[in-house]
């Protein structure tokens, strides 16, 4: 199977301190990969290094290689702006801009200089439909995105990422700030997205990982302990630590 992103022996340091100890992980195309693990296990840090959001934190160094479509994303030649257009990100807290829904969704397209009103309208509709929030927003496109509920805001944020048509979508605990109903809507959205996109999702919620992901990777203290097809891992984990975590012995 084709991999979209491949990390090889990737180590990350905050100053002197090594936070990720040599991660080898690949994300297969059109599959959902869940990154599991207790707080502080490095799963979010790893996710954020896949589109170089860790660049924003001073004193972060990364060794090893992270390849996206065969290109090392940490090579000096890599254009971070283009990388982030192709590897989109959805954050833990819904973070729509304080603009209208329409302006939120077209933000990425406007950056690319798209001005054609018809194309913009079309992309807004497509993206909001894909993110399963079109019915709630179609009559309120000119209203502030902040006037919607948390779950709707998060789906608007997903639509905002989809509008630029990335190859891969990184989701950093996208449902942990939401109520169960909104969460399940977002899970449905993710299953739909799988047809066109490759998804990596960090989650605290093991049931969520079991419901939606095809592959699971278990992180502990900056190490990648085990990576497996999700069903395989949940039924019959190889490592004892994974089994303990899945059985709720810690975490």
């Amino acid at each position: 199977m084709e991999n979209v992103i491949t990390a090889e022996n990737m180590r990350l340091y905050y100053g002197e301190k090594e936070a990720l100890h040599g991660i080898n992980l690949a994300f297969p195309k059109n599959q959902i990969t869940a990154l599991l693990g207790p707080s502080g296990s490095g799963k979010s840090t790893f996710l954020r290094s896949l589109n170089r959001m860790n660049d924003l934190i001073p004193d972060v160094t990364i060794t090893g290689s992270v390849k996206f479509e065969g290109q090392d994303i940490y090579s000096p030649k890599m254009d971070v702006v283009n990388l982030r257009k192709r590897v989109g990100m959805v954050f833990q807290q819904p973070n729509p801009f304080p603009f209208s829904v329409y302006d939120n969704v077209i933000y990425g397209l406007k950056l690319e200089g798209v001005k054609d009103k018809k194309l913009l309208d079309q992309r807004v509709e497509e993206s909001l439909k894909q993110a399963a929030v079109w019915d709630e927003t179609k009559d309120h496109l000119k209203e502030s995105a902040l006037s919607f509920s948390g779950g709707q805001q998060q789906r608007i944020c997903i639509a905002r990422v989809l509008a630029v048509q990335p190859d891969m979508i990184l989701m950093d605990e996208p449902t942990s700030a939401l109520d169960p109903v909104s969460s399940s809507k977002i899970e449905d959205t993710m299953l739909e997205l799988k047809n066109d996109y490759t998804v990596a999702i960090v989650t605290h919620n093991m049931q969520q990982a079991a419901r939606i992901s095809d592959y699971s990777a278990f992180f502990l203290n900056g190490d990648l302990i085990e990576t497996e097809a999700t069903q395989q891992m949940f039924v019959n984990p190889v490592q004892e630590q994974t089994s303990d975590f899945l059985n709720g012995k810690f975490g």
Partner: protein
Amino acid sequence: MDQIKNELTHKSKASKQDVRGRTIAFICIAVIMLVVLSILFMITSRGLSTFIQDKVPVSDFFTKTVWNPSAVDANGHYLVGALPMIVGSFSVTILAALLATPFAIATAVFMTEISPKRGQRILQPVIELLVGIPSVVYGFIGLTVVVPLTRQLFGGTGFGILSGTFVLFVMVLPTITSMYIDSLKSVPRFYREASLALGATRWQTISRVVIRASVPGLLTAIVFGMARAFGEALAVQMVIGNAALLPHNLLSPASTLTSVLTTGIGNTVMGTLPNNALWTLALILLVMSLLFNLLTRYIGRKGGLK
């Protein structure tokens, strides 16, 4: 039992202190309220007596252009047309705000977004210093530097609205900048992250998200700057020329509400029309500052809803 009952039904030391503290606070507030209300009452009653006691038509006051309260015209009407000063005040205020805003935006963006470390170390003290310089010093510099410069560059006497604008520009710049810095700092970090994660450059993030999200804060800052400019007396008075004439261009000598007040207040007798007319100017200033205040609140509320 009796002892416990006694303790429960009598005021403890702590609750007595509580009452005492509250009483002191109430007295302080009452004194302040009294002072504020009497100031308001005094200015309003004196200011209105021009119209009530001296029977000057309100429309004349706001539309006539001759200001000479100690004289009457051929028909026996007092010459109290305040339009030149109102125009003067508004034009220096608006021009100074217009001129200062781009500089304030650039400075504030530099200090918060582009180079926060150097901004904190070098520019922050500079701005605080600019706020602290007494206005008479600004006026003095205006008189010795700005006025001759204006005269050489644009002609005329150098005294006029343009010089007033330049001096006020320097005076309101730190006000607008420091308020806008606070507003930029309150733009949540996750807006910036969201924008960068969508493939925006740092400049695109600043110009399309951060500045846009902080527009209500910017407007509030500008209004505060305008309030300061509108109320500034000394520095403006020193460079504007103090001619109570309707200015026909930016270089002709003019006057503002405040400059007429400061020059005229010592030369009038309490209770006479020339004195009352000055109180009316003070009333206009008061009403204007009230309006500026309401405007910032309105912007704050609208911005908060977004």
